[in-house]
């Protein structure tokens, strides 16, 4: 009977470990990549808008210099505020499950307004329109990744699906650990400290896994040199990944410490029982 209780306790401890692990990973994901506020904060922290503007102006100036439209003042059009507005709008659409689209009318209008002040012939204005198309396409590519829209449009669907799934299971994720913890304690109600030992094992295993994931990623992936699309995006993704790894590490350490304490408490209980037998 004691052996049966032991086996059942180990099985429940294993299941508890899995549930806690899932809860931790879901919790961290929900608070980071699935949170629009978090991502927008990271955009500000990594000076994303300024970096995009710097890159954009270099590319746009290249086209403008060879176009002969040197009088165009693009710094007035492609401001950090304009970029912030368009990028945040892009993320807003993504996190609300909408199709990603970019409204170029505002930029086209500003370019046309500047063109009207130049004394150009009709033929030159027509050529300028073609150049404006290139300028707007460059802006769309650099700022809203317009050329990748076919992939980007999968992101809102994925985010909506994940959020819906998490909402459905979130109550379960919070309640299940409590249920399984109580089950272990009930099974081992005559030896509560032994029950704590099993809970400690679950937490310790979680801590080992989380710290192990951290070490694996850091040793096998060159995170600091990630290059995705451009420097601004890469720095953003590096910052998010580094932050998530740090969170995993902290939670892992906490689980390890609490788990270790639980395990030691369970170990001390055996000592008391042994004393009682021989007294």
């Amino acid at each position, binding site marked *: 009977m004691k052996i049966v209780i032991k086996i059942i306790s180990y099985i429940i401890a294993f299941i508890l470990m899995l549930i806690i692990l899932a809860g931790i990973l879901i919790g961290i994901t929900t608070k980071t990549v699935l949170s629009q506020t978090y991502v927008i904060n990271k955009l500000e922290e990594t000076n994303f808008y300024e970096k995009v503007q710097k890159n954009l102006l270099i590319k746009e100036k290249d086209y403008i210099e060879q176009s002969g439209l040197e009088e165009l003042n693009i710094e007035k059009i492609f401001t950090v505020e304009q970029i912030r507005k368009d990028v945040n709008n892009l993320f807003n659409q993504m996190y609300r499950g909408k199709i990603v689209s970019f409204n170029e009318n505002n930029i086209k209008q500003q370019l046309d307004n500047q063109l009207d002040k130049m004394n150009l012939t009709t033929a030159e204005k027509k*050529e300028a329109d073609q150049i404006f198309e290139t300028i707007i396409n460059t802006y769309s590519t650099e700022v809203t990744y317009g050329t990748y829209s076919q992939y980007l449009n999968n992101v809102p669907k994925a985010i909506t699906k994940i959020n819906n799934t998490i909402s459905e299971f979130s109550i379960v994720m919070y309640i299940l650990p409590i249920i399984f913890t109580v089950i272990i304690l009930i099974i081992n109600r005559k030896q509560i400290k032994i029950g704590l030992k099993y809970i400690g*094992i679950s937490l310790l295993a979680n801590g080992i896994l989380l710290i*192990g994931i951290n070490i694996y990623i850091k040793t096998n992936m*060159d995170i600091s*040199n*990630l290059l995705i699309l451009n420097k601004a995006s890469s720095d953003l993704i590096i910052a998010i990944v580094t932050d998530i790894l740090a969170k995993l590490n902290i939670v892992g350490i906490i689980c390890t410490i609490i788990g270790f304490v639980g395990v030691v408490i369970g170990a001390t209980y055996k*000592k008391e029982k042994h004393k009682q037998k021989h007294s």
Partner: protein
Amino acid sequence: MQNNFARISKATIISIIVALLFAVIVVVAIKLIIGKQISFAVSILNTISIEEKQANEQKLEINTEKKRLDTYPAYGTKYGNIKIDSIGVDLPVYLGDTDEILNKGVGHYSGSYFPGEGGSIVYAAHNFARFFRKLPQVKVGNKIKITTNYGEFNYKVYDTQVIHMSESDKLPIQDEKEILMLYTCYPVTGIGHKKHRFVVYAELMEEE
């Protein structure tokens, strides 16, 4: 006291081993279920991340007997540098001539030979101010230096021409003599699509 400590330690160690076993079971299960996808993702991310870092470190070697490179750089990577002192050009050279490459520097037409191989080398760059805007100012006799990690090559300009973009025969690919041809859209200023190209022709200088 010592016995108690030994017993507690033993029990603790057993529990730690069980916890490790739990972790190992999870790792094995993950590896069995999605191990391949994880390895693929890691290798893709690493390839992307170290691409820029290693591009400059890729060691190329030229077989001087056969006059051919033993290994060629990956398409899209930087393998050298071009310097034209007379017009202040000092730019990276990439293999390939896609839009992405031409926005970064000088593109090497991949159907032409490499410096040192004794054939036609064709380089192109946009007529942006930071690239080949001043190319039309190059004169016969000006020197051009190409630096790679397998050698340094010096060329002397012997001709410049304005050609129509359809005149590809004015950029001949041959392997009898090492000729460097640089071109850019022409005219270098003015509104509109450019239908002409300004070409600089230079021949390899004999080593002194």
